């Protein structure tokens, strides 16, 4: 059956571009501009989907992105909203969540069993006996969910823009357009968005059989076009409102995050269905859905229709239906008294108007594919009861439903607007608006064309005065005349199937039962019945749920309140939200060199560092051993440009460091360095590093690679409080750093450096400023990985020059670069712990054996007070060096294996490695105090559960090789 109308002015389809596609294996044609639903409906299809719980047949409800019973898949993408997604040539579509097709869905028997599945039934069964629950759970999981996910769907990259504007108007309907035009006169920058493909809102379809609204629209759009400062974006929805007018605008190909000075919400209202038995049959649709079909897609909603209305909107819909050639068998008006201004027009056309009547039920056709007839009867509005003594049947194949509206107020709720229930429009309207947020049009309770236009201007004038633009104050009068929304459009029926929530198949009685079970406030009711929890988020059900609850509890609607509308306005794709993702990491200026030298990189904090340099023919472990041995036997060097580097200058520099670190710096000599330990207020170790004094008022310090950002942040934070006379400069990126270590380090370095490196002139712990390979440098005598080692700090851009010069100068000594892995072994051989590796979030310096770095009687340092308290209590654990008592076939413990004593946890291994120098496994472990006895032993439990003996040792594990280099 073809339901396509003759070409109509303003239609959204392009008749010159017919399209072929298939649905459920059958071929169809539509036009470019058709949505999947409109094309199928035009072709005479009725069952487009199945409901979620009972698998009832479903057709069009709203045709406005809320028809979540009609989700389809093209096998690429799932849960495609057929009511708004355009059909494309060659699409092969299936309905989701059916078994065996939408018509012959094998699960349709569930509808018959609905009596066994009242509200919340799943809470009351399946759990006992416990053993059977996994079985039932599996059944339930499989029947839940909608579409199947396509695991081959590509990672799409969507654009993300960030923009600003003076005024963002959401909704280009009557009020939005009018607001834009009014505000534009003052020349401010306006962005106007609408989720529909064309602007105009209800002006595009709510015509009441004449041309007035389309003429108004044409004029508005003409004017908009001539305003260069209005940007009109269609096919774009505002997905949510976030603090300070931050609003993501979602397009098909990405998101624009808009920050606006002011926002006008002109999002209109959702039409609400009246509730009667079988109000979900295909062919029963909202009046506005029928209007959309007619005016946008030129599709006849049905041949013979009944309009069921509880407001004046039904009269407008009836006129539109008539104009489209639909036979209107009757207009059933729930209201006995209210007179619609359009009633006369219908009567002149001989349309039967039944006032004070309801549709008692819709009767399905034999194949349950649609409506065969409706049963109507008188309705008593005060008691809310149908008079079933007087049933009349009217044949029809469709019903248009008009019972009222719910404001599309999600963005307002998110903006923190408080709403009040207005008894003239019987709807929630904004009560108090936060600064910069405005509402206009239906969402603000203005329904007539004139008052919507006016309300848009009123909102714009308020925006302008907020933005301090001069403007004439416009006032818009509140609604007058018949209320647009009925207070209780519910027709009870003993056999139920009068649906309130179409997403979740919730019927009128479910609410009554939920209340009986004690879930009688709106939030609990929502959670127990799941009303509004489906993909359309209650756009057509929340308001009715509130009305029912008010009735049940015999309270006014405003006392019931409403549930919170959280983002998103429409479900928003993960790929859109993600946009391009960034995985920032930092590289040192030597990175390319490392790469050429076959380095294998690992991430350390934000940095990529060479783990080791691979050598053809050598395993990873062997390569690392070679690196270690080259330092111990000759010389090696490592890129330590990743260290945090901070300069502190100013008269209070020493004082600042005295407070920040645990040690003493006031009397530190220029040209010397000190080990520095930082604690938090609880006395827990944060980081360690080296502080060098370059002048009275200038210190240069290092922090460990992974903690450097934190250290700098903490320094700044404390400086905010202390307000000392200092400056802090993070020079981490400015300086490169190279550590040359090993017995031959001095020999290599002296070739490039003019300064004397002799033990007297440049002893352990001093810093010199000199020139190396013609590059100015700061060199520190350090001892982390080897007793003899130099840390050379040069400007990043010079690091490569120095590195290459060192490689050349070290050639005779067989100098070798080494990576983080060798560094870890080397420092362990030296007995040094690493912050964050050998300490955790609770370690204090007593436990870590770092009290040598603490000057407890200073006037103040961070963590001092805590440390004083901790020192009074017995120590609970100590970090001790250990050697493994090696036996053949023994499993070597790993880091984080536990120390076990008397069957209980007595500590943990934090570092362990095979020392190539000692040819033995060495490590560090926390043990309880009684085990921390030099020469004593303890047991470590390995992964496989065996206990391995460890002997408490002394550090450094590797003793001096500095002797030979002293020569």
């Amino acid at each position: 059956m073809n339901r396509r109308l003759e070409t109509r002015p303003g239609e959204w389809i392009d008749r010159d571009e017919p399209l072929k596609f298939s649905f459920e294996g059958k071929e169809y044609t539509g036009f470019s501009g058709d949505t999947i639903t409109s094309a199928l409906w035009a072709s005479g299809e009725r069952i487009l989907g199945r409901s979620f719980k009972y698998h009832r047949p479903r057709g069009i409800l709203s045709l406005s992105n809320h028809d979540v019973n009609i989700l389809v898949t093209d096998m690429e993408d799932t849960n495609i909203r057929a009511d708004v997604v355009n059909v494309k040539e060659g699409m092969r579509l299936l309905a989701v969540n059916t078994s065996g097709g939408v018509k012959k869905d094998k699960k349709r028997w569930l509808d018959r069993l609905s009596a066994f599945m009242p509200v919340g039934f799943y809470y009351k069964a399946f759990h006992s006996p416990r053993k059977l629950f996994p079985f039932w759970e599996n059944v339930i999981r499989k029947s839940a969910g909608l579409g199947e996910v396509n695991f081959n769907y590509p990672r799409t990259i969507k654009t993300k823009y960030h923009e600003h504007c003076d005024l963002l108007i959401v909704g280009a309907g009557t009020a939005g357009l009018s607001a834009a035009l009014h505000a534009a006169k003052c020349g401010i920058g306006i962005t106007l968005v609408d989720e529909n493909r064309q602007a105009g809102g209800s002006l595009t379809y709510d015509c009441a059989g004449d041309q007035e609204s389309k003429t108004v629209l044409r004029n508005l759009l003409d004017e908009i076009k001539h305003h260069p400062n209005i940007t009109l974006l269609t096919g774009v929805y505002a997905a949510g409102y976030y603090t300070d007018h931050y609003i993501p605008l979602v397009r098909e190909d990405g998101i624009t995050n808009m920050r606006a000075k002011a926002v006008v919400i002109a999002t209109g209202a959702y039409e609400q269905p009246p509730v009667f038995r079988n109000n979900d049959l295909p062919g029963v649709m909202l009046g506005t859905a029928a209007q959309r079909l007619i005016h946008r897609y030129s599709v006849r909603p049905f041949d013979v229709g009944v309009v069921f209305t509880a407001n004046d909107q039904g009269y407008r819909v009836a006129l539109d239906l008539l104009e489209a050639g639909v036979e209107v068998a009757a207009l059933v008006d729930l209201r006995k008294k209210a007179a619609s201004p359009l009633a006369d027009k219908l009567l002149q056309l001989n349309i039967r108007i039944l006032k004070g009547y309801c549709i008692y039920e819709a009767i399905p056709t034999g194949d349950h594919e649609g409506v065969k007839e409706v049963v109507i009867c008188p309705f008593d509005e005060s008691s809310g009861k149908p008079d079933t003594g007087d049933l009349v049947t009217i044949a029809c194949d469709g019903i248009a439903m008009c019972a009222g509206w719910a404001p599309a107020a999600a963005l307002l709720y998110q903006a923190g607007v408080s709403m009040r229930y207005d008894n003239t429009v019987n709807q929630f309207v904004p009560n108090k608006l936060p600064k910069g947020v405005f509402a206009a049009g239906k969402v603000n309770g203005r329904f007539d064309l004139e008052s919507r236009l006016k309300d848009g201007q009123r909102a714009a004038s308020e925006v302008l005065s907020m933005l301090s633009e001069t403007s004439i104050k416009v006032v818009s009068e509140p609604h007058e005349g018949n209320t647009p929304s009925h207070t209780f459009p519910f027709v009870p029926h003993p056999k139920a199937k009068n649906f309130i929530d179409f997403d979740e198949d919730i019927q009128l009685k479910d609410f009554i039962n939920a209340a009986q079970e004690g879930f009688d406030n709106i939030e609990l009711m929502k959670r127990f019945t799941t009303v509004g929890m489906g993909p359309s988020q209650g756009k057509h059900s929340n308001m009715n749920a509130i009305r029912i609850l008010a009735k049940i509890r015999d309270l006014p609607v405003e006392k019931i309140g409403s549930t919170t509308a959280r983002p998103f306005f429409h479900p928003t794709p993960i790929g859109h939200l993600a946009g391009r993702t960034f995985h920032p990491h930092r590289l040192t200026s030597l990175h390319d060199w490392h790469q050429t030298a076959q380095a294998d990189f690992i991430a350390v904090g934000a940095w990529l560092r060479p783990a080791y340099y691979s050598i053809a023919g050598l395993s990873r472990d062997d390569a690392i051993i070679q690196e270690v041995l080259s330092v111990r036997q000759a010389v090696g060097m490592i890129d330590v440009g990743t260290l945090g580097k901070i300069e502190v200058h100013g008269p209070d520099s020493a004082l600042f460091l005295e407070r920040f670190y645990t040690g003493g710096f006031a009397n530190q000599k220029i040209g010397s360095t000190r080990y520095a330990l930082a604690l938090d207020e609880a006395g827990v170790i944060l980081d360690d590093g080296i502080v060098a004094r370059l002048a009275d008022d200038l210190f240069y310090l290092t922090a460990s690679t992974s903690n450097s950002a934190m250290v700098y942040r903490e320094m700044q934070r404390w400086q905010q409080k202390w307000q000392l006379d200092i400056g802090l400069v993070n020079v981490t990126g400015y300086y490169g750093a190279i550590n040359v270590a090993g017995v031959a380090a001095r020999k290599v370095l002296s070739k490039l450096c003019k300064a004397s490196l002799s033990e007297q002139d440049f002893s352990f712990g001093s810093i010199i400023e000199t020139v190396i390979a013609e590059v100015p440098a700061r060199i520190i005598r350090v001892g982390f990985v080897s007793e003899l080692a130099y840390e050379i700090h040069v400007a990043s851009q010079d690091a490569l020059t120095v590195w290459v010069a060192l490689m050349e100068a070290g050639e005779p000594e067989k100098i070798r670069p080494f990576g983080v892995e060798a560094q870890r072994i080397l420092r362990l051989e030296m007995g040094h712990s690493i912050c964050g590796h050998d300490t955790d979030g609770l370690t204090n310096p007593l436990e870590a054996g770092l009290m040598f770095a603490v000057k407890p009687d200073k006037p103040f340092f961070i963590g001092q007070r805590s440390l004083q308290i901790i020192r009074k209590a017995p120590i609970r654990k100590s970090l001790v060096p250990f050697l493994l008592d090696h036996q053949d076939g023994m499993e070597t413990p790993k880091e984080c294996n536990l120390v076990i004593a008397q069957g209980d946890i007595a500590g943990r291994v934090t570092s362990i490695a095979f020392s190539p120098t000692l040819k033995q496994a060495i490590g560090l472990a926390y043990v309880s105090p009684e085990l921390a006895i030099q020469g004593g032993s303890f047991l470590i439990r390995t992964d496989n559960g065996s206990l391995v003996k460890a002997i408490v040792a002394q550090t450094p594990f590797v003793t001096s090789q500095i002797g030979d280099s002293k020569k």
Partner: protein
Amino acid sequence: MPLRLLKYAFSKEHPDPAFFTQPDSLKHSYDAVIIGGGGHGLAAAYYLAKDHGITNVAVLEKGYLGGGNTGRNTTIVRSNYLTPEGVKFYDTSVRLFQELSEDLNLNLFYSTRGHFTLAHTESAMRTMRWRAEVNKHVGVESYVVGPDDILKACPQIDISCGGNAPILGALYHAPGSIARHDAVAWGYARGAYQRGVDIFQSTEVWDIKTSGGKVVGLNTSRGFIATNKVLSAVAGFTPRITDMLGIRTPIVIQPLQACVTEPMKPWLDTILVSGSLHVYVSQSSRGELVMGASLDPYELHSTRSTLDFVEGLSGHILDMFPFLSNVKVVRQWAGMADMTPDFAPIMGKTPIEGFYLDAGWGTWGFKATPVSGKTMAETIAKDQAPELIHSFRLSRFEDYELTGEKGAASVGH
């Protein structure tokens, strides 16, 4: 079809009585008053009545039952913590949870799915081993697994995470589960109500009255109640209650956010957590992916959502599951997490006699609902905290005896 459902089809009236009804007014006095009708408060009421026969009890909830963090959490239940004390405590909770549907005669959809904490770095692997070792020691089923085991349980995951953060392994925790959060609150409420406990919703506690260092009563929006025992189980509102008594705690409030996708057919059978990517995800029995991330990095007493959160989370989810690009997020929300410095709760007695605290549940308290209810009920009944919660006492902060769970809790929930 279970037989239990037959009664619905064959009775004319809806056969189920009310879970709970509210008395018209407060009594003048109660043996104990519980502030907060979240899971914890209701569970404490239930066990007070059930285990200790104390039923002259009122639960006062300023909003609706379960409307705080109980109804906002992502329901991960697990016991793979880091300290032996923590592991024992949460393990007790897991065991109570396993029997809870039958105990409360309400299907809580307690669903054991297995829990993987993914490690993308060597240092994360170390922490996994640490946790596994402690768990094993206490008798909890956790072990370190490699990428192959992860792929076996979740073949859809991109183990290299788009090359950005390759997964090196994971801590696998077999008992890891999810449940229906609301049902837990309702089940405990019903159980308490049936045993005579009074439950008041829309009833706010304004002040707690003391005399000589002892609790004597409370002022509420429904009037004054005399009582000598008050339990505060208000999670994100804890500082407001402790301020009434001048009790100092180190608790700060930070927002924690979450979101869900539209429902899809089941495909994700396990619970996945990634510390490096700051995300975790499971699929609910409704078919939605329930996803969350780390705490918002600042203090704020608010349940507002941010775009930043969902953008960041989306990127990271796509690192693991690139094919979700066009799956849609339906809803996002936030709760207020009551954070402690050591990521362990604060439970037990306080310097004020008769005032008991159940707080510091941060991002991890849902799983502890049963055990906290049970142990707090015992604490109130005997005026002494059981050994199981000794490590969580408020005085541990003064004593510098923290129970460091940060390594097991950051995104872990």
